């Protein structure tokens, strides 16, 4: 237990540090926290209206994605599963692109469309990999997911090109960008992330049982199907909300649960899921700060930074999978 306490304390510290970085670091106008109460109006304005909502969106997205990744890995019992690798993000992205583009005249609610897309691609990848017929092999699940995502991404590109005035904004959107976030996005995002967090905490114990295998869990009185469906629902809602507000953020949901498990040294999801959320927040905040640094003075979409961090990690995981 002391180890868990230590890990949580350090993670909170990391969260604060990265939040400070995300709030103040790498700005074209030098920002000083002291400037806020010494009457530096420019600093105060930038921090309050630009940086603070942006930081909060990053933290919320990170928490949501960390939880979602943990849930998905627990329920598929697959170390390589993540909404991005399995094409769930890309499905949501396609439906958002469609609702902003071709289907614009029907004024469909973007969030609902994103969730529908996420659910549809999740169901497809399950069918294709044979996950519904029992435990699919990890490799088959991942390869199906990757092929499905490349199909969905190609369709999204096609949909974007159908009305090219959207073009550039959607390019940044597909990579995931927190540029221009306002309090409106914070207000839109937090209920979903809070809901998903509560749901994940409630599901943590059943997920622990699920790790024993379907039959053992069943004999312990667990409704395995219900747990799986609820988990899938939470993942879909988080992925849909994140894609709607900031776009398809790659790999945060893959890295973070692994790190949480490794730090804690055990599989107990009651500890792993909250830690994954906090670590996800810290990773997103760090990526946000880095996204302003990597091609300073220009900004890169934050999703590209997470992809640059996450892809080597994904490679490492596949390398570890060899038998």
């Amino acid at each position, binding site marked *: 237990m002391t180890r868990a306490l230590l890990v949580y304390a350090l993670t909170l510290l990391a969260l604060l540090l990265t939040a400070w970085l995300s709030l103040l670091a790498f700005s074209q106008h030098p920002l000083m926290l002291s400037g806020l109460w010494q009457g530096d109006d420019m600093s105060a304005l930038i921090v309050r209206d630009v940086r603070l909502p942006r930081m909060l969106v990053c933290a919320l997205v990170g928490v949501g994605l960390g939880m979602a990744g943990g849930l998905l890995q627990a329920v598929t019992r697959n170390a390589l599963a993540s909404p991005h690798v399995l094409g769930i993000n890309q499905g949501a992205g396609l439906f958002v692109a469609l609702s902003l583009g071709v289907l614009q005249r029907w004024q469909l609610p973007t969030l609902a469309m994103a969730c529908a897309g996420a659910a549809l691609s999740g169901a497809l990848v399950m069918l*294709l990999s044979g996950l519904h017929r029992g435990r699919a092999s990890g490799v088959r699940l991942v390869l*199906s997911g*990757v*092929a499905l995502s490349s199909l969905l991404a*190609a369709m999204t590109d096609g949909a974007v090109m159908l009305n090219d005035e959207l073009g550039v904004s959607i390019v940044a959107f597909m*990579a995931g960008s927190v540029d221009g976030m306002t309090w409106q996005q914070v207000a839109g995002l937090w209920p979903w992330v809070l809901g998903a967090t509560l749901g994940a905490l409630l599901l943590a114990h059943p997920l622990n049982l699920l790790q024993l295998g379907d039959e053992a869990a069943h004999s312990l009185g667990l409704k395995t199907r219900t747990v799986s469906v609820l988990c899938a629902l939470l993942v879909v809602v988080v992925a849909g909300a994140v894609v709607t507000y900031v776009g398809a953020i790659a790999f945060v949901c893959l890295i973070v649960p692994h790190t949480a498990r490794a730090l804690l040294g055990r599989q107990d999801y009651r500890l792993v899921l909250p830690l994954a959320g906090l670590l996800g927040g810290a990773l997103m905040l760090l990526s946000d700060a880095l996204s302003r640094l990597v091609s300073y003075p220009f900004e890169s979409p934050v999703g590209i930074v997470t*992809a640059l961090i996450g892809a080597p990690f994904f*490679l490492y*995981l596949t390398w570890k999978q*060899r038998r």
Partner: protein
Amino acid sequence: MRGTSTHAPLLLAAALPGALLLTLLSLAVGAVPLTLQDTWHAVWSDSSPYSHLVLQLRLPRTLLAWPVGAALAVSGALVQGVTRNPLAAPDVIGVTSGAGLAAAFVVLVLGDMPLWTLPLSAFVGGLAAALLVYRLAWRGGVSPMHLVLVGVAVTQLFAAGIDYLASAQADRVALAVIWLRGSLWGRNWEHLMLALPLLPLLPAALLLAQRLNLLALGDAAAQALGVSVNNTRRQALLLAVLLASGAVAVAGTVAFIGLLAPHLARLLVGADHRRLLPLSALLGGLLLLLADTLGRGLLSPLEVPAGIMTALLGAPYFLYLLSRHRGGMI
């Protein structure tokens, strides 16, 4: 082989007029649609008002589709033959994206470099990617699914790099799309010259055909029949990387042709590489030309990059192959 040899001349006889017709069609389709008659006229006489459009803008693209598609397809056939893996292809095992990242670096970051540096850097990138994937997937042998899995991960890594380079060049989105998706957009006679060295490499693949046939019997059997297994494998992979990176250098990271074309060819003429390789080349060129023509024609005057069209065709086929693949080691 099962008696399919009789099909080959028939197939060629049917394919040639089809290819010619498609070539003519690809010259006619685009933001300014022409009738076939106008197109024909523009090709043969200088007096036609469309001759600049057809000869300078569309003809190099149309011609370029052949060497690029053929190179990708033959590269795919070689990789599939060497690894005895139906899921393998230069784009699946990371070669295309490695070549794409290196070429994108030259174009987007270094800027005004002489054109010949493109294929060179693409080859270096492609070779590095192939070596990396093989090294990481190796454990006293390479299981087909694992090779593909590592290839996919390496592809994600390089794709993130290309994304980063492209995002820093937001003002040149059209150029970035070439490296992200693959497209023949804006390719001209100069690019066609760049693709010409691919042509002698295509028949070179045929020199390996007989040994690849023997390799299909298994390493031990091939060795017993006097094939130097490791040498053959090395030569074939090197050739595959050369072909794929040459194609990427001029048309970007076009996906799935290297997977699709050899499979189609195998369905038509069987597994004998002496027939499989030439037919793959033909089908690869045809597929890319078709993808480019459709991409220009479907939503004209907008243009969908050829790479998107090939992904729309190829990704479902890859999923189908995956669902059928029941090999061990997974």
